[in-house]
């Protein structure tokens, strides 16, 4: 039987989702020891007796990790448990030298929350509420390198090499309740949820949330049930989903794969699957262990976490504005068209543009600089806009200089280059490079007369009332004056010279 199309799948089947997101916290030290968490260190340079599980080592929890997890819980509208414990999740696998991972089992620190997401559909924006079952603390695993075999994958490998720098980095797992009722929008809702989580976490400043570096990872559980049925189907869990786009592709792909099996009267196997970035398909991984196989029990080396209610309320008071609300507010206050808003979010310049506006710059001008010239330079250098040596204060000053007529847009671009090259503030660059607008009408008139003589035919057309032709002449004058003239003044003088209004 041929693979069903997505439309055929949703005509017959109703998808049910469950999403598990793992977030690496950006604490300086690990969850239960004082090793550094920095990404990209040489192998096994960030380990100690605790994260290597040497005999007699005693884990002690990182207080900042607890604080960050409570902040996440509060931002996701969760209740915070007055008493919670760590548990050992036992499994035999070399990515954890202890042969267990310290996690939380039946006593997670945060529970019962929700996240509201909005997606654009043909029928307009639609809201979905994703309920959060729990947010719990655990530790990340080491990194394996599989040697031998054709593909560098675990299958067919002769042996594996382990780097434990990542073992023990604080990890927070955010688990949704089952998400029913998204129908054909399931893949988009899942993507919107992960995007919203990423924005919330970034706003809280508790994680780098870089999906490509693995500091934010999503496992997607998908099952199908016949439309109208109350009985849940068998789920598969897809791991290795490392971008927002992949979240959408992985779920869509799994829905089609499940439907094909079910349409053929076959069964979906409950298993872990690995998403393949290149093909957009998943391949089978290990059969999912049953929860009881993990033989969870409270970790006897760690004591209960009992955050004071007053501390929780203090943390609640520090929560930043919810990203989705902030975007709505900014869009309205600055009157930003949809496309431009999306461009700002995608280019990740919202914070920097807002900072520029708060320093007095016109929102449209601020946005145009950050999204245009400055983004272009950042792209050329292949770095993030925020890493360039230009600040919101610089751009605010630049916008003010242009508004005062002391710079033209073209000159301002030279100033931007100067600031980024480390020549100082915009006013310093203007002084050092001797950049100034030509305001001398005499010099402008000389250029206008020269251009009109060179392009006599065009000048004649303008004289005859064909105003659009004036653009070419103005451009030539600007070129003649090396962009240092004010285009509006040039136009005025040119039209006067040619006797038209």
């Amino acid at each position, binding site marked *: 039987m041929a693979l069903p199309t997505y439309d055929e799948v949703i005509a017959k089947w109703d998808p049910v989702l469950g999403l598990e997101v793992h977030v690496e916290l950006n*604490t*300086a*030290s690990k969850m239960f020891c*004082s*090793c*550094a968490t920095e990404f990209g260190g*040489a*192998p*096994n*340079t*960030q*380990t*100690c*007796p605790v994260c*290597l599980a*040497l005999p007699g080592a005693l884990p*002690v*929890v*990182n*207080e*900042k*990790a*607890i604080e960050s997890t409570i902040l996440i819980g509060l931002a996701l509208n969760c209740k915070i448990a007055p008493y919670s*414990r760590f548990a050992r999740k*036992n*499994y*035999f*696998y*070399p990515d954890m*030298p202890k*042969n267990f991972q310290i996690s939380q089992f039946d006593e997670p620190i945060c529970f019962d929350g929700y996240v509201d997401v909005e997606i654009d559909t043909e029928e307009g924006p639609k809201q979905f509420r994703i309920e959060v079952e729990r947010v719990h603390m655990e530790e990340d695993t080491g990194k*394996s*390198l*599989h*040697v031998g075999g054709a593909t560098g994958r*675990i*299958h067919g*490998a*002769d*042996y*594996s*090499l*382990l*780097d*434990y720098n990542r073992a023990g980095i604080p990890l927070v797992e955010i688990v949704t309740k089952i998400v029913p009722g998204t129908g054909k929008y399931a893949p988009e809702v899942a993507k919107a949820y992960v995007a919203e989580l990423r924005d919330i976490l970034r706003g809280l400043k508790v994680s780098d949330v870089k999906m490509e570096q693995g500091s934010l990872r999503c496992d997607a559980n998908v099952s199908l049930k016949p439309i109208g049925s109350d009985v849940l189907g068998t789920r598969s869990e897809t791991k290795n989903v490392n971008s927002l786009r992949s979240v959408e592709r992985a779920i869509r792909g799994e829905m089609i794969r499940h439907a094909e099996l079910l349409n053929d009267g076959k069964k979906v196997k409950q298993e872990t699957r690995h998403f393949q970035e290149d093909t957009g398909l998943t391949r*089978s*991984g*290990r*059969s999912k262990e049953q929860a009881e*196989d993990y033989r969870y*029990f*409270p*970790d*006897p080396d*760690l*004591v*209960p*976490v*009992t*955050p004071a209610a007053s501390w929780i309320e203090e943390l609640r008071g520090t929560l930043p504005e919810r990203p989705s609300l902030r975007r709505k507010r900014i869009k309205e206050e600055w009157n930003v068209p949809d496309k431009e808003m999306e461009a700002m979010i995608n280019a990740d310049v919202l914070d920097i543009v807002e900072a520029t506006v708060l320093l007095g710059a016109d929102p449209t001008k601020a946005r145009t600089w950050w999204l245009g010239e400055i983004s272009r330079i950042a792209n050329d250098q292949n770095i993030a806009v925020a890493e360039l040596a230009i600040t919101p204060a610089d751009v605010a000053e630049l916008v003010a200089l242009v508004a005062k007529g002391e710079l033209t847009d073209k000159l301002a671009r030279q100033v931007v280059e100067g600031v980024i090259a480390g020549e100082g503030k915009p006013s310093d660059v203007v002084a050092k490079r001797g950049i100034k607008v030509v305001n001398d009408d005499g010099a402008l008139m000389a250029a206008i007369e020269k251009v009109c003589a060179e392009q006599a035919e065009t000048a004649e057309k303008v004289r005859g009332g064909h105003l659009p032709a004036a653009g070419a002449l103005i451009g030539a004058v600007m070129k003649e004056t090396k962009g240092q003239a004010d285009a509006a003044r040039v136009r005025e003088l040119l039209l006067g010279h040619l006797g038209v209004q």
Partner: protein
Amino acid sequence: MSSLSRDDVAKLAGLARIEMTEAELVELSSQFGLILDAVARVQEMDLSGVKATSHPQPLENIARPDVVLPSLSPEDALSGAPAQEESRFRVPQILGEAE
């Protein structure tokens, strides 16, 4: 008398990646039974007013500040490893992965 079947022990041994002979599986299943019986005696008591505990000391909220301290050198970290390569721990082929 509680008991653990031979298959239960085989499953536990598999989860812990411990290779056991048939004789050992049978022998251990009866020994596990004795251990479970001993633990079961606790359950016969009335513990309704006793809070479950996982730590001998009545301690809570023992935490450390988020401060980085020096780690082991990679040489020290790997000094007890039976095998190593490229500054990494070398482990035998990871089994139990279907397909």
